[in-house]
């Protein structure tokens, strides 16, 4: 592997070829992101169904307020260098598990007879961790790992836990919807960003 400073887009310089195992790793991680995006869709559908109308109705649009420790991908995300995008993806994936755990705990009170939803939320937290670790490993292999201070998931987790437990039921339902929506958005974003690394992808 040749370390390059600056841009991480190997396909931008056709003279640089990725090592086969690194290319395989990128493909593998991209496939994982693709699969998890599908699961995230299913999670969202199951979630809205169990909260009751109007959550599942077309046109239902609660305010998309930001969640502490995690925001939606910015409109400028697509314009960033791919290594920066992947760093943001990894950071978001690291912030998601405690939020998903908090949603699961609240849903365990609200929907105790919905084991499939609870299992999906538990799986989602685990899968977000796994994909985030895979993206970070790729960044390290590509020489673009984040060496600076990172967001602290434990603080976000504490906030998520206490807030989720204290808020009214309707706000908790809305918050859960927001978290599940962010989960889907970030997975989709990660899948797209990884796709840029695949040979033959756009520069």
């Amino acid at each position: 592997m040749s370390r390059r400073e600056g841009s991480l887009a190997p396909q931008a310089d056709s003279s640089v070829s990725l090592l086969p195992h690194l290319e395989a790793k990128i493909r593998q991680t991209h496939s994982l992101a693709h699969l998890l995006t599908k699961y995230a869709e299913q999670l969202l559908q199951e979630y809205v169904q169990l909260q009751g109308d109007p959550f599942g109705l077309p046109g239902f649009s609660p305010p998309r307020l930001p969640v502490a420790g995690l925001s939606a991908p910015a409109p400028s995300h697509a314009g960033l260098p791919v290594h920066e995008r992947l760093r943001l993806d990894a950071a978001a994936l690291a912030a998601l598990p405690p939020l998903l755990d908090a949603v699961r705990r609240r849903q365990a009170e609200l929907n105790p007879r919905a084991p499939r939803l609870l299992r999906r939320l538990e799986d989602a937290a685990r899968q977000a961790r796994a994909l985030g670790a895979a993206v970070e490993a790729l960044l390290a292999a590509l020489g673009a790992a984040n060496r600076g201070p990172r967001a602290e998931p434990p603080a976000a987790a504490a906030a998520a836990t206490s807030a989720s437990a204290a808020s009214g039921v309707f706000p908790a339902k809305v918050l859960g919807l927001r978290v599940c929506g962010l989960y889907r958005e970030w997975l989709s974003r990660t899948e797209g960003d990884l796709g840029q690394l695949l040979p033959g992808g756009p520069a």
Partner: protein
Amino acid sequence: MPAGRRGPAAQSARRPPPLLPLLLLCVLGAPRAGSGAHTAVISPQDPTLLIGSSLQATCSVHGDPPGATAEGLYWTLNGRRLPPELSRVLNTSTLALALANLNGSRQQSGDNLVCHARDGSILAGSCLYVGLPPEKPFNISCWSKNMKDLTCRWTPGAHGETFLHTNYSLKYKLRWYGQDNTCEEYHTVGPHSCHIPKDLALFTPYEIWVEATNRLGSARSDVLTLDILDVVTTDPPPDVHVSRVGGLEDQLSVRWVSPPALKDFLFQAKYQIRYRVEDSVDWKVVDDVSNQTSCRLAGLKPGTVYFVQVRCNPFGIYGSKKAGIWSEWSHPTAASTPRSERPGPGGGACEPRGGEPSSGPVRRELKQFLGWLKKHAYCSNLSFRLYDQWRAWMQKSHKTRNQVGRRDPSPSPLPTGPAR
């Protein structure tokens, strides 16, 4: 026993919210300074109510700039807009709602009551829990598999429909001493069941009851008192074999082994056999099979396939005087009675010989039977070829017996139904 008690039909007790952490500031209901947007607060938040009761609620708007108006606000419940005549403006910033004769909640997470701005945007929400307190669970029954565990089942009161999540907890304790214990493995044999896997005492009675709790109250079943030894069941008898009794057209011999798990304990087993004709759903039961491991079924139809099952009741363990509990039935075992040797329709003379490709009605029926056995009896090796081999063997051994004369009417070693 204390009767089931009903909790007050009032708003559920809520923990007082702490100072809003950062996350909650971002959740619906908090104002955004300087944004020009309005938010609101619904009162009461997340009330719990009895079916048929009424609810008075308010939606109070606040925001920036101040002086937000209640004009134009409206309510929805579970996504459906409520008629305007149910609402009235209390003051410039508060819209009231009056709902009467409430139905049970549509979902267990609560009915969604939402206050909307004129443009349809959501200002605030509250979840209603409308239902009934639980009624007394009843009809508790328990059994112990081989004295190692205890499984109990019960019926929820009022057929279980409270419209609210109702938690059922099976409790048990030794009658004369010991603390209350709570069963932990639920839904093992249905939605209202629990399994206690270990640490059970014998020769001393247990008290068992079920507590049902929801947001509107709780109820407790009557106490069931039992000794583990009085409610023992066991596995079905293994190794059930069904075979012909020589050439007797109307008899089959059934043999089995007593359940091994209880073989070291002093008990008298009772057995029951049931059998039916292949195409029938009506079982005949042979009841009078006590402490034996074989039985001969008689009065059967010749040339007919029968399915047979056996079950065991291990009564009298360690001197228990109670009846014991029947095991499950063993897997079905099949065998056929010999065809009648009298000439006539359906007689053996018309059957095609083994190996012939004829597709007469007998072979067609047999093909269906083999297909069914493969699917239901875990025996994947059955085939027409095997059946033809067996027929050839049968004819050969029948010729041999006819040559030397009939000696012993004991069942010939015929292939029986598929092994379990």
